[in-house]
């Protein structure tokens, strides 16, 4: 439904999007993830033909964004980061206007307007001025205008930003329910959002593609080696943390043991097991047989958050092939200038 090849957007001083390629299949819901200023909005604006790419190619629903922008726009519903509302208009009047703008007319227009009002639960504010609506309602009106012409592709730029927790849940619910009819790309910098709503995730940082995979795969990939956190304590007296660490390392299947925290009567260890080893039972037995207290034992599965930090924080390690030395992050000790490639927000 969407294919992007080497898409690039250069500004006089910065490269906001740098040779990004990915594709999205029909009916998928894809999370576009990255810190602020990573190039998410820029990429989305190129897909919606708001502005053309500097280089590269992108097609939406089979139409090229450079060659057939009008066709692309006809097949796209777009919710920018702040909903594009005319504050002096009433909700229903505004939705009619957008519907007409997207080519609807007559009974079809009325039908679609009624449908999106129902779908986005806007019945209560139908005749209210948009300027008087709360942030949550404005976001819903924004979503309603994006789906009014029943587009194949929905592009949502940070659809939950600025909403309160209950509104966020409602918005996510609504977006998930739309997934059946539309292919959806939504950008966000909130990780749980991706875990909850998306099937696939595209991670970008500083304009570069860092990873693209299904959410499940990404989690599995990061969990390749199982790690376990344990807290061990002595019943009486001091706890010989270093000695216990050495003993732990001798358990079969354990590849690494780290002391995460240490207090006089106990310590917290992180144990990494090589793939395929079920080590939790062995660890428990060892601790109990050694006469220690086992206060806690839990798998330290990586959340998407950690994966994300790992991927975006050590970009050069994850993607060593395409980055030039100039793009490496500056050494943490140096207080010098940021690299020239740094994207601004």
């Amino acid at each position: 439904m969407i294919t992007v090849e080497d898409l690039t957007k250069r500004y006089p001083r910065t490269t906001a999007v740098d040779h990004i390629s990915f594709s999205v299949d029909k009916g998928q819901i894809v999370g576009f993830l990255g810190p602020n200023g990573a190039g998410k909005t820029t990429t989305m604006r190129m897909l919606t033909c708001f502005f053309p790419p500097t280089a590269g190619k992108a097609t939406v629903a089979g139409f090229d964004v450079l060659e057939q922008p009008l066709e692309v726009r006809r097949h796209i519903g777009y919710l920018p980061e702040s909903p594009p509302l005319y504050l002096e208009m009433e909700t229903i009047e505004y939705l009619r206007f957008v519907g007409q703008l997207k080519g609807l007319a007559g009974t079809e227009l009325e039908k679609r307007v009624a449908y999106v009002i129902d779908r986005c639960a806007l019945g209560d504010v139908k005749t209210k001025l948009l300027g008087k609506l709360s942030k949550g309602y404005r976001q819903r009106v924004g979503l309603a205008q994006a789906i009014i012409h029943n587009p194949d592709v929905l592009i949502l730029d940070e659809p939950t930003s600025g909403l309160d927790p209950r509104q966020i849940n409602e918005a996510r619910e609504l977006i998930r329910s739309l997934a059946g009819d539309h292919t959806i790309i939504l950008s966000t910098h909130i990780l749980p959002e991706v875990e909850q709503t998306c099937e696939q995730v595209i991670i970008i940082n500083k304009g570069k593609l860092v990873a693209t995979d299904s959410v499940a795969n990404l989690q599995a990939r990061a969990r390749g080696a199982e790690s376990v956190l344990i807290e061990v304590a002595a019943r009486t007296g001091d706890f010989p943390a270093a000695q216990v660490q050495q003993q732990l390392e001798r358990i079969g299947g354990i590849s690494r043991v780290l002391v995460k925290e240490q207090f006089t009567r106990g310590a917290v260890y992180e144990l990494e097991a090589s793939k395929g080893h079920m080590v939790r039972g062995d660890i428990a037995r060892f601790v109990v047989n050694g006469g220690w207290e086992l206060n806690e034992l839990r798998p330290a599965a990586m959340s998407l958050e950690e994966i994300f930090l790992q991927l975006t924080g050590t970009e050069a390690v994850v993607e060593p092939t395409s980055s030039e030395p100039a793009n490496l992050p500056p050494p943490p000790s140096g207080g010098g200038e940021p690299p020239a490639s740094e994207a601004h927000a």
Partner: protein
Amino acid sequence: MRSIWIICRRELSSYFASPIAWLLLTMYSLIFGYFFWNLVTYFLQNSMEMQMMGRNMPMNINEQIIRPLLGNNAFLEILFVPLITMRLFAEEKRNGTIELLATSPVRDVEIIIGKWLAALLLYCWLLFFTGLNFLFLFRYGHPDVKSMLVAYLGVVLQAAALLAVGTFISTLTRNQIIAGACTFAACLMLWVFSWVTSYNASTWATVLSYISVLPHSESFGRGVIEIKDFVYYVSVIFLGLFFTTRSLESLRWRS
């Protein structure tokens, strides 16, 4: 064509939903009414003096009221055109609604013509109410309708040209006040360019006076449609709107 009308209608409804349209109408009618009252009073005094002195100078309502009145109207025009056009694109840029228009299946030209047309219709609506003043002239005198309508046509054409300039300037900034001030300056300069011909007859002075809007309105004021003046206005409209499309396009490439 359909998109032009959709955009034009929304634009008009937003003028009328806010107090802008009504405020402009009030101010325009008051000032125009004052101009009218002045000219009529002057005309009456003159004709009374003529009668008392026994001279029989021909008095003409068209020449002595309508023509100078619509000439004065140019003042109002350069004052009101910036007020009408300053929000056209500047406001959309500030509110982010430009993103909606620019990602809808609508051509840039259609957006621009729609907005310009809305501004022109609003101005014509203001102008419509100035016509009420003339009803008095028809009640108590016999002005020539045709030449009056031609004079009005001139006013509308001139407004259309200045509005096109204003529309262009509105795309250059997201600040309405800047857009308004620049439009006002541009309209004023276009108006007074012709002054140089009064003391200078060189080629560039002639060119400057041809660029100026003022000399081109004279023929319409006399009740004559001159092709060259008509062409002048149409070409200013065309140029203004053409630059607007370029400006929108460059906005896309630069942003």
